[in-house]
C-alpha cells in the first residue's frame, strides 16, 4: 500500500508540471484543484492490483523461527494434504 502511493504522487506532479507549461499566469487559482482532480490522481488504478507477497512482509523472522518446528510436525502428521 505504501509503495503504491508513490506513482500516484508522481503523476500528480507531472500534471501540475504540464499545467505550468501551458502558462501559469493564465490559469485562475480556482481551476488548479479541478485540474488536479481531472488529472492522474483519480485515474490511477495501481492500488487495485493486490500484491500477495506484500501481505506477508509484516511477519517477522522471529515468529517464523518460533513456529518452524511445530509446522514441520504438523506437516508430517497431515501428510495426505501436504
Amino acid at each position, binding site marked *: 500500500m505504501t509503495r503504491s502511493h508513490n506513482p500516484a504522487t508522481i503523476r500528480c506532479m507531472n500534471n501540475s508540471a504540464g499545467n505550468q507549461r501551458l502558462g501559469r499566469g493564465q490559469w485562475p487559482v480556482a481551476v488548479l484543484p479541478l485540474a488536479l482532480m481531472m488529472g492522474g490522481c483519480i485515474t490511477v488504478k495501481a492500488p487495485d492490483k493486490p500484491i*500477495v*507477497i506484500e*501481505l*506477508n512482509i509484516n*511477519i*517477522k*523472522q522471529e*515468529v*517464523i*523461527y*518460533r*513456529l*518452524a518446528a*511445530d*509446522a*514441520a510436525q*504438523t*506437516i508430517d502428521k*497431515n*501428510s*495426505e*494434504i*501436504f
Partner: protein
Amino acid sequence: MARNLINARFGTSLAAMAALALLGANPAFAERDPAYAAAREAGQVGERVDGYLGYVGPASPALRAVVEDINIKRKAVYAQKAQANNATLEEYALTSGCVLIMQTKPGEKYQGPDGSWQTRTAAAPLRDSRCP
C-alpha cells in the same frame, strides 16, 4: 512385517509395483490423493510461499477441485495450529510454506520469493530470507 509384505508384493510383478505406487501402499504415511500426487509430479501444481498449493499453468476443473479441497484442509489445520501457538493464520501458513518448499523434491515446482515458479533441483530452494 510390513516391509516383508511390501517386498513380497514388489516381487510379484512390475505391474503390481506400479499399482502399489498409485494406490499408496505404504502404511506408515497417509498418502496423497493420486490426482494430486500425479499433478505434483508433473509440475502442474507447486508449493506457494504462503503455505498453500498453486497452479503452475492452466488447470483442469478436476484438478482445481482437488487442489482447492487440499488448500481448504490446509487452512483449517493452519488455523487450528496457529491458535494453539498464539500466532496468526498467515504467520503459521507462511512458516509452513518455508518448510514445504524446503521439503520439495527435485523436479517439483515451488514459488520463489519473487513469486515466480521454480523447479526444485538438488540444490537448496530459493526461499524467503526469513525462512529458517
